[in-house]
């Protein structure tokens, strides 16, 4: 089992009455509430935290892309990734991912990702995403009905741009280039590709056909995800796809401390800050055309299944910060407590959802740097080593060979079964 350090890069200093005053944190944030110098300090903190994660055995350092939101202030994941690629040694640089539909020409993504692969000496994981509706349809203005089509055209162009040994002409619907011949080229012949989704059948077909790593990236935890992830594996099996758990990624907020009580004391405020400040106008969340009719019908069915374990009321209470710390944990939004408890809960989660790539959110909301650093250290020293046996019988073609070798060289538990395995 692999572990990737991730944080949503949430601006930590919005006013206390941010939610009560009705501020939106997506598409139309109030810029006067986001201080540029505080933003700079925040970015430097995340770089330090991820440099630390690289030293304690994390398999990857994950960065993502969102626009016009203080909830996740990373307009270009490649910028943060570049800071890490040149100052870390071991972990994969997991860019999860670039919103392919938003760039024209998309060769810019091929170039920047190749650059990251060069600087990191072959440690790049290339994540391609559709982006949230707020990003792709609103902040970047794409007609929702075109986002998928633009994504696929860009994906084909980027993959060809990495591989072709001769200049070629690309006559797409959205991008026309008479000469494609990018530099630099990636160190890895073709970096591993990850494509997260939110349950669209069309995305399932893509990752099965291309044998990409799929990802379910939400912050609603096990019960919210389970119907969709189960349905995905069932669909994959039926289609004869690769059932290797190492091609499934999942995000999970982790709050680890020496004791359970300490975890509650240290993380509760930050967890509430995280959920409460993710305020989005519902009219920006689901523009028409972003999902196909086919996916609307299948997601409607899955949603009803999910409600048996996690009701819409639960979700609303989680979003408004009304849950107790341990209720957040019990309902799966977070996994918290001592290293032993976190380890056991992650083992259950991983087996239940058949996940080989855990994207662990080790910083959340306005958490203090020292707490996040301790979280990272406890994960690296006392949680991750106890879970290395999980899925170790399966090959992992979805993380770079270089990062696999380097992380193994510094980590206990890899390639030898811990005493408490199975």
């Amino acid at each position, binding site marked *: 089992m692999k572990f990737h350090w991730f944080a949503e890069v949430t601006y930590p200093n919005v006013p206390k009455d941010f939610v009560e005053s009705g501020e939106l944190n997506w598409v139309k944030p109030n810029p006067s509430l986001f201080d540029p110098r505080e933003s700079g300090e925040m970015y430097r903190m995340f770089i330090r935290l991820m440099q630390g994660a690289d030293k304690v055995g994390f398999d990857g350092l994950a960065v993502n892309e969102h626009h016009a939101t203080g909830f996740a202030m990373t307009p270009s994941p490649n910028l943060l990734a570049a800071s890490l690629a040149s100052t870390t040694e071991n972990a994969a640089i997991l860019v999860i991912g670039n919103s392919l539909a938003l760039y024209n020409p998309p060769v810019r993504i091929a170039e920047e990702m190749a650059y990251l692969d060069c600087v990191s000496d072959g440690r790049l994981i290339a994540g391609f995403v559709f982006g949230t509706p707020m990003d792709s*349809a609103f902040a970047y203005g794409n007609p929702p009905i075109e986002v998928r089509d633009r994504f696929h055209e860009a994906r084909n162009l980027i993959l060809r741009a990495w591989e072709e040994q001769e200049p070629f002409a690309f006559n797409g619907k959205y991008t026309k280039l008479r000469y494609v011949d990018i530099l630099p080229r990636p160190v890895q012949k073709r970096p591993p590709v990850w494509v997260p989704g939110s349950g669209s059948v069309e995305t399932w077909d893509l990752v099965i056909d291309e044998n990409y790593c799929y990802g379910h990236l939400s912050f609603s935890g096990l019960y919210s995800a389970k119907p969709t992830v189960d349905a995905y594996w069932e669909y994959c099996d039926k289609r004869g796809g690769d059932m290797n758990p190492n091609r499934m990624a999942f995000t999970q907020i982790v709050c680890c401390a020496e004791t359970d009580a300490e975890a509650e004391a240290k993380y509760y405020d930050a967890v509430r800050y995280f959920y409460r400040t993710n305020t989005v106008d519902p009219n920006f969340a689901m*523009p*028409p*055309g972003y999902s196909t*009719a086919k996916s609307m019908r299948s997601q409607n069915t899955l949603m009803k299944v999910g409600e048996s374990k996690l009701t819409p009321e639960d979700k609303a209470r989680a979003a408004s910060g009304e849950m107790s710390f341990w209720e957040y944990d019990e309902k799966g939004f977070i996994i918290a407590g001592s290293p032993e408890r976190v380890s056991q809960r992650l083992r259950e989660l991983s087996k239940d959802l058949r996940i080989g790539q855990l994207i662990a959110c080790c910083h959340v909301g306005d958490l203090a740097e020292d707490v996040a650093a301790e979280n990272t250290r406890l994960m690296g020293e006392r949680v991750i080593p106890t879970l290395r046996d999980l899925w170790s019988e399966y090959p992992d073609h979805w993380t770079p060979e270089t990062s696999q070798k380097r992380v193994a060289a510094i980590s206990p538990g890899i390639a030898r079964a811990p005493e408490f395995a199975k």
Partner: protein
Amino acid sequence: MTMTMSKVGAYDIRRWSGGSGAPLLYLHGFEQHPGNAPYLQKLASKHKVIAPEHPGYGESTGIEDLEHILDIALHYRQLVEDWGQGPVDVIGHSLGGMFAAEFAAVSPHLVRKLVLVSPYGLWLDTEPAPDPFVLPADAMASAKWHDPSSAGSETSAFTDNDKLELAVFRVKNLGSATKFMWPIPDRGLDRRLRHIKAPTLVVRGEADGLVPASYTDAFAAGIGGAKTESIAAAGHLPMVEQEAAFLKVVEDFLA
């Protein structure tokens, strides 16, 4: 009016047609085809009416294949040519007004008279129009109607009771609309208005909060000799809220 399904080029297009008299093409608005609407039936008492559903709406196909607004203009050119009635009168409402104007600009020989009702297709920095895709339900109701209780009189091509399928119907329709209206409903029509040669009437409901008066004025200013009519106590759908007044200004103009 009779509902049928038939090909226009490679697309399956649903249409409501009926009546006799001078041929009239009716192009519906951005939300949905109105189905067998009372005002279409009344138009059919004096005209031979055809009211096709736009590609990608309801049961009609073809939206994946369309790239540019020219493709829509040529789609309607083909539909009118296939109809074989010679030049036709055209009424285009809302997004259908944008399509009708584009069609009239590239096919002047096929359009006898043109009526644009609360048409989309232009953008004025001096008065940004509301974004119809994000208005909350109550704001949408007050922008769309003079009297929001008129909503009950609006007809639809969707007549089933299934809630999920109604949601799918709406998302297919509005998703298809985003091809031409997102993020701004301007695909360059302002440069082409001068190519419209048909006598044109621009109609708006006085209380239309979706397409402001400055927009219908800009249409009229851009089309040589265009007339304007404003209908009192009506919003974005004057044919629903003030059916008699709507039919009168349209029939007077087409006569």
